[in-house]
């Protein structure tokens, strides 16, 4: 569900009284495939890919690829200047390479200007694009064709690129009834939210000039809404788990400043694709240890025990690497942890893989969604 949108508070302080923005609607009329494309009038929207890949030589990678649409204004201002834009386009990509112990992060932020970045419109295949990060030629692109999503990014300076095609292995699911995912008590505190919990993924990963032909499984989230956090919410812990028995679990909880869970939700996708939404309760998550980032100084929980009464699951998650922090060099104070984890049962057997996202740890890290 909530892929983090950690746009620094400094850039976009939450505006509570913004009548012009559209807000999430429980009765939203979904229409696919059009709803894969961008929705105007919402303050935030994202296409969020995380996944586990393996090269033909057996080398394992974790990856993340996201396009954010950050609404500056509900509508594009009038005027002939190309710089008139309603949105910022932000792209994040990271790769986790347990073999070398490296986690790399790349980002782009541009105003939605015709020659810098933008969003496609149905029926074009392009969903979102941006100029590559400074120092790299070319574009980042996310497109949708009948067979699935394709994503391309490159960052020469950080020395990696992703070029992946995905194909749904299981059907699209809604997170929450009719894809309405409540985040808090406020009227706007919700999002339109759907996922592909299991995408067959193939393509190429390049690391320091070496190309790896890769295959694996991805998870895709698509979410849009406006002013989704309640005032006292500072961040969230979000989990997407793909179990070897072809079940998938999505869990999140939103925290307040004291670390108290404020709001939470869970989705269990059965092997046949049927969906069960449940309340995991206040006690479902326990951090096993913590890890402190040297670079940002932020301390994150690291390793978790998850107990879910309702679906009856008891899991232990261990990060494949401790350091999977994404730190922005463009937006000050923006850092979050987005990392690949392995899933174990109580006996210590590997029973799946997943991705965990931790936001709002550390001062001034409250996402500006």
């Amino acid at each position: 569900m909530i892929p983090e949108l950690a746009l620094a508070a400094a850039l976009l302080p939450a505006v509570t009284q913004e009548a012009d923005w559209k807000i999430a609607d429980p009765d939203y009329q979904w229409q696919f495939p059009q709803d894969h494309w961008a929705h105007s009038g919402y303050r935030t929207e994202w296409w969020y890919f995380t996944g586990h890949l393996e090269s033909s030589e057996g080398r394992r990678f974790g990856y993340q690829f996201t396009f954010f649409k950050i609404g500056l204004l509900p509508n594009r201002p009038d005027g002939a200047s190309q710089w008139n834009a309603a949105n910022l386009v932000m792209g994040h990509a990271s790769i986790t390479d347990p073999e070398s112990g490296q986690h790399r992060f790349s980002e782009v932020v541009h105003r939605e200007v015709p020659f810098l970045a933008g969003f496609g419109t149905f029926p074009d295949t392009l969903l979102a694009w941006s100029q590559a990060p400074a120092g790299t030629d070319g574009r980042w692109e996310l497109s949708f064709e009948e067979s699935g999503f394709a994503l391309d990014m490159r960052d020469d300076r950080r020395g990696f690129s992703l070029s992946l095609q995905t194909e749904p292995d299981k059907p699209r699911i809604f997170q929450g009834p009719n894809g309405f995912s409540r985040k808090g008590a406020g009227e706007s505190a919700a999002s339109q939210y759907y996922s592909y919990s299991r995408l067959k993924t193939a393509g190429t990963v390049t690391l320091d000039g070496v190309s790896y032909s890769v295959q694996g499984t991805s998870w895709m989230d698509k979410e849009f809404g406006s002013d989704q956090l309640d005032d006292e919410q500072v961040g969230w812990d979000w989990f997407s788990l793909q179990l070897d028995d072809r079940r998938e679990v999505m869990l999140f909880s939103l925290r307040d400043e004291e670390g108290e869970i404020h709001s939470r939700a869970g989705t269990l996708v059965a092997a046949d694709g049927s969906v069960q939404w449940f309340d995991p309760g206040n006690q479902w998550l326990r951090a096993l240890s913590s890890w402190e980032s040297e670079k940002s100084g932020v301390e994150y929980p690291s390793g978790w025990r998850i107990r879910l009464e309702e679906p009856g699951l008891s899991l232990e998650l261990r990060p494949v690497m401790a350091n999977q922090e994404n730190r922005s060099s463009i937006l000050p104070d923006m850092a979050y942890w987005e990392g690949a984890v392995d899933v174990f049962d109580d006996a210590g057997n590997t029973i799946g893989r997943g991705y965990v996202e931790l936001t709002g740890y550390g001062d001034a890290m409250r996402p500006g969604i």
Partner: protein
Amino acid sequence: MIRLLLQSTVRQFQSDKLLHLLTLLGIALGAAAVVGVQILHQSAIAAFAGSVQAVRGNSELTVFGSAPSFDERVLVDVLGTVGVESATPRVQLSVAVDPSSGDGFLELAGLDVLSLASLPYREEFELREALSQPGWLALTAEGADRLGLSLGDRVNVSCGSRTAELQLSNWVELEQLGPAASPMRGVMDIAALQQLLGQIGEIHQIDVALVEGQEPDSVAASLEQRLGPAYEILTPSQQVGQAEQLLGAFRLNLTALSAVSLFVGFFMVYTTVQAMLVRRRREFGVMRCLGTTRGQLLFLVLGEVAILGFAGSFLGTLLGIGVAQGSLADVSATLTNLYVLEEVRSLALSPSLIPLALLAGVGGALAGAAWPTLESLGRPPRELLQSQPVHERLHRVSGLAWWIGLVLLGGTGVWCLTWGRQVRPAGFVLGLAMLLTIPLITPRLLRVWKVVPAHQFGVLHGLRSLASRLHGSAFCSASLAVSVSILVGITMMVSSFRSTLESWVDSVIQADVYVTAASYARSRSDAILEQSVIDELVRHPAVREADLLRRVDSRIAERPVPLIGVRMDLPDGTRRFPLTSGEDPEPVYRRLQDEQAVLISQPLARRLGLEDSAEFDLPTPEGPQSVPIAGIYEDYGSESGAVAMDLTTMEALFGEGPLHSVSLYLDEGTDPEQVVTALAARLPEVPLEIRSNARLRAEVFRIFDQTFLVTRTLQLVTLLVAALGVATTLLVIAEEGRSEVALARSLGADRPQVFRVFLGKGAGIGVVGVILGLTGGMGLAWILVHLINRAYFGWSIRADWGALFMVPEFASIGAAVLLASLYPAWKASRTPAVELKRDDS
């Protein structure tokens, strides 16, 4: 020894307060001139550097086009270049503030989101507001104050014929980033600025931050290669360097002048020290006999001088700051008018001024004292004890010095006209030789007073006495001559320049009414006249013919060069660009229309060595293009040069583009002023500068005169120092000649007679100084006009020797010398006859 030094300094100062005060003042003025000029220059550069600094963030390189604005899509290429960490586009416009909200210009920067959000604001910055609120503007607090704007107030500004209503929505504290920058500065969203006042799709620069560890030079090289020759990639220091280069000639001019003040101050020190040595000869002789070493005495004397110099430096620094503060407004106006640089708001005082002031004051004083001190203390003690005054060695060497001077001047002159032709500073070398020759030939010249009959004890007697007592008077005359030379030389250069400009303006300013946008003076090619405005102007019934001007600001050989497109087919329009060759203009103007040939201005031709070239490479958006040169025209508008062509040629080279100025030719007998009023009434909403022929001329000369105002201030300082020099010398002569006066008094000369004798001495010094100065000044004027101006500005100036007869200039010199003679003469006349016996005892 130090204590002895201090005691002795105080005693010396007390022994002749006036003489020491005058010398102190002389040193101080010399140092003040040097320091003042340096402060002004530093301030101008600091203001520019501040403006470079103010909005650039952490960027280490900036991309500029060869024209002021360029296609915004270049940003994509910049972003794609290896080593670039971030690239931020910027629209940068000078806009004219509507007179209703205060006069003047604002520098507005249009920035993208992240740059805009990262600036320091006084109130909380609301990005959405900045992007969505029409006319959102943040100004510096001081700038807002000057315009009388409070938060929420609206202000009308214009760029070209377009106007926009902006709203002061925040205060941006740019002064934190570039303290010396002009406060008339603001920021707004790039989209808003571009579409309200700029050109769609055009930006003015891209600020580039580099990946840590990347060499700016290598990234700049990659960018240059990628973007091609139409773009220039500069580091901030290179930008400042360009401004410095642009101001180079301006600075050189002022620095040379200030050095002259110092030079004259140096002579004063010489004279004073000489006098002091004469007076204390015996004292030194006795001290030597008592075992004081020569080194100790040297330390004592030079130490005293150094203390004087130190005090002079201090006073000079204060005076220099005062001079700079006083001229700041004019210098600022000159820089904005001539070089389209930033307004200079405040003085930039840096610690480097201290060594400069010390060098000027202490160094100048010690240099002045060195020779007489060494010469005098080098003598054996026995000689020091003798009561004879310093032997007139100068008499013997005056002939030799004369010839050395003439050979020096002649030799340098010959060098300048032959091998030195290729050397750019040759003019300065010759000028320096000339200024050095003056003191060398002065002693010999002063001896002409020998022919004056001495049968009358008065003025003539005073004149006559100069011939035999050269050592004081020669230096004084020489320093006077040097300052008069400078005064005359520069006055003549300026007036020659002015009269040349007058005849040029007569030829060039032909139309009856000139129309530009109000912001044209600053924003130049950004100040576009919309076609509808032009149509309305031309529609006036009295308009017989209209010339249209399109301006493309370009850079050629690293300096800004305006490219001017006009209607070359205008009837009787050939005088607008007077050809230097004097040939029949008709065929030349035909080539401009038929062959897409261009005219280049004389400074450009000189700078690029194109005098005999048939074509040259003109930078265009498609890269350099070879264009035929139809001729070279006289131009005094841009010292970096200019290129003129037909509008159709410009369109072929640069594509279609907007116009910037309209010149209207009216029907016979129409009153231009009435048309000006009528046009303004026709377009009340459009911020236009509509000038009649007469008003434009007046404006040209106002700017010209303002430009040379600082020069005149410095001239005045030099003259003042020279007058002080005359006073000092005469005081010394009065001091040394006490016995002579006493004799005359004992022979029955009354006080008025003695007074007249000293006036005669002053006059003798003055006349030689002035005549020599006049001659030298004419030479200097010739050098300035023919060598220096040509080499540094590329301008041909027709020497206007008529300026020699400018009464006020000479009256002022005469008055200065006379005034300077009065007190010493009065003091001498008070010498009692009984003084004589001292000489006998």
